């Protein structure tokens, strides 16, 4: 059978090669280039030898880099927390309290907003939260407040609200999938053995769905760290996040070496935080066995 196995492997490789070569050329090669650029000597519009670590040293010396990185982490961790905490009950509701024939419809309803133009959704929050915008004018009209709240002037809060809305469906789906996998007889057993509903949830359901929660955390955390549109439209460019910093370094200051170093550092930080979540999950599951 060895020859037929060899033939199968050849067919598999032949089939995978168009998409794999595409990804190698347009993804792996560019990422490798950024990695190399980050240790080259750069200047305004130029880049070259010798190899140096000064780009990374600069990241530690200039406080702007650290403050933007910390701000990005703070915003995306806050957004991750809010979306996951808000998403869990809704996923629980659809999984446990909606009849099976209607589950697909509910998921469809939850995912529709995600498929509508991202730029428009973000820009809408600007008109909703802005000075004398929709929230202000509505509240003044019904007499709750006299002075405009102007939530938009609080850039961080507005960004967290906007991003939490934008990434909400991302968090619901993985949690829903893990809830669907929970063996319902375990819950009955828990209650038969005298646990309350709440305790059954905390001691059985929640631990079993932890992988889904971690997946939700990662799927929200990773793209929000790199968000560019929200800081521009909502923060008005005054509260840049890491993506805006990369842009200005690469395209405005045109120092590709320094820009690459920021990108590499950002990937490193994102990777590290993700790894922590994954390890937490593993440890959590390890304790169960």
């Amino acid at each position: 059978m060895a020859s037929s196995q060899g033939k199968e492997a050849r067919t598999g490789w032949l089939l995978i090669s168009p998409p794999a070569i595409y990804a190698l050329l347009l993804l792996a090669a560019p990422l490798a280039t950024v990695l190399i650029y980050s240790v080259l000597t750069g200047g305004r519009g130029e880049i070259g030898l010798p190899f140096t670590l000064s780009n990374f040293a600069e990241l530690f010396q200039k406080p702007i880099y650290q403050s933007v990185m910390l701000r990005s982490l703070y915003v995306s961790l806050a957004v991750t927390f809010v979306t996951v905490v808000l998403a869990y009950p809704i996923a629980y509701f659809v999984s446990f309290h909606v009849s099976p024939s209607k589950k697909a419809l509910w998921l469809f309803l939850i995912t529709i907003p995600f498929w509508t133009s991202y730029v428009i959704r973000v820009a809408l929050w600007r008109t909703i939260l802005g000075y004398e915008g929709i929230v202000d004018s509505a509240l003044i009209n019904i007499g709750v407040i006299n002075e405009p709240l102007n939530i938009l002037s609080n850039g961080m809060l507005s960004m967290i609200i906007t991003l939490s809305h934008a990434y909400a469906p991302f968090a619901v789906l993985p949690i829903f999938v893990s809830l669907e996998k929970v063996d319902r007889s375990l819950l009955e057993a828990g209650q038969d053995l005298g646990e309350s509903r709440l305790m059954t949830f905390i001691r059985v359901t929640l631990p079993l769905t932890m992988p889904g929660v971690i997946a939700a955390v990662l799927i929200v955390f990773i793209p929000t760290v790199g968000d560019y549109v929200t800081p521009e439209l909502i923060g008005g460019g005054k509260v840049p996040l890491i993506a805006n910093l990369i842009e200005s370094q690469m395209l405005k200051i045109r120092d590709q070496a320094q820009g690459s170093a920021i990108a590499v550092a950002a990937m490193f930080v994102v990777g590290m935080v993700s790894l922590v979540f994954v390890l937490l999950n593993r440890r959590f599951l390890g304790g169960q066995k």
Partner: protein
Amino acid sequence: MKKAPFLGGYAILYLLFLYGPIIILPLFAFNDGRIVAFPLNGFTTRWFTEMFADAQLKKALLNSLTIALSSATLATVLGVFAARATVRYRWPGKPAALGLIMVPLVLPEMIVAMALLVVLLSIGIPLSIFTIILGHVLICMPFAVAILTSAFQSLDRSLEEASLDLGETQWSTFRLIVLPLVMPGILSSFLITFTISIDEFIISNFLGSGQPILSVYIFGQFRFPAKVPSMLALGTLLVLFSICMLAIAEYFRRRGIAKTGGKDTGGFL
């Protein structure tokens, strides 16, 4: 089903939060006032007239349609290759190859865009609609692969074997048996990647050559308060369009599952 009034109420509130901004779109798109705030001033269609008269917008729409059609087609074709290779054949290196293709899902898009930009600039490829398509195919491919893999997985292998036993070749079996059965998956992959490409902003903004692209154009217009109402009109149409595309994609996905006799396990992603 157990009754859960508290959770049910929460679900309604959550949907209101999700749909809030989308409900606002048509509300103010038909509102007779340039300032987007309460109270509403009465009904008008002039924002739609203003939008349709915008020549730049037409150009942007045309460019975006070209990009989306090309990216969706390419991503879906590449996705068929990847899905067929992973579902049907066993070969060493599968996790690595598949992992590489799926990487854009777990990488901030800004980094993908900047990495591509650096390479394109260094080898001297001028930025154009073509370079945007290159980027869009890259970020659409993981979605196409995910949708198509599940379509290929629900395929009954014995149908193929029967066809081969009856004397068809590998290729004619694929064309006559496999392709028609996964066609719903292919269509839903095409529609989803098309929608992603139309909406995409970062790559369209940084890998373009200043030609108007829909998402980039909208982004720019929102900076002028006077332009906001006609952008809301455009947004209303885009939302309607997206919902139609999704409903069609969902229809094909379900029909595909019904065709192959599978069980429906929920939506996309």
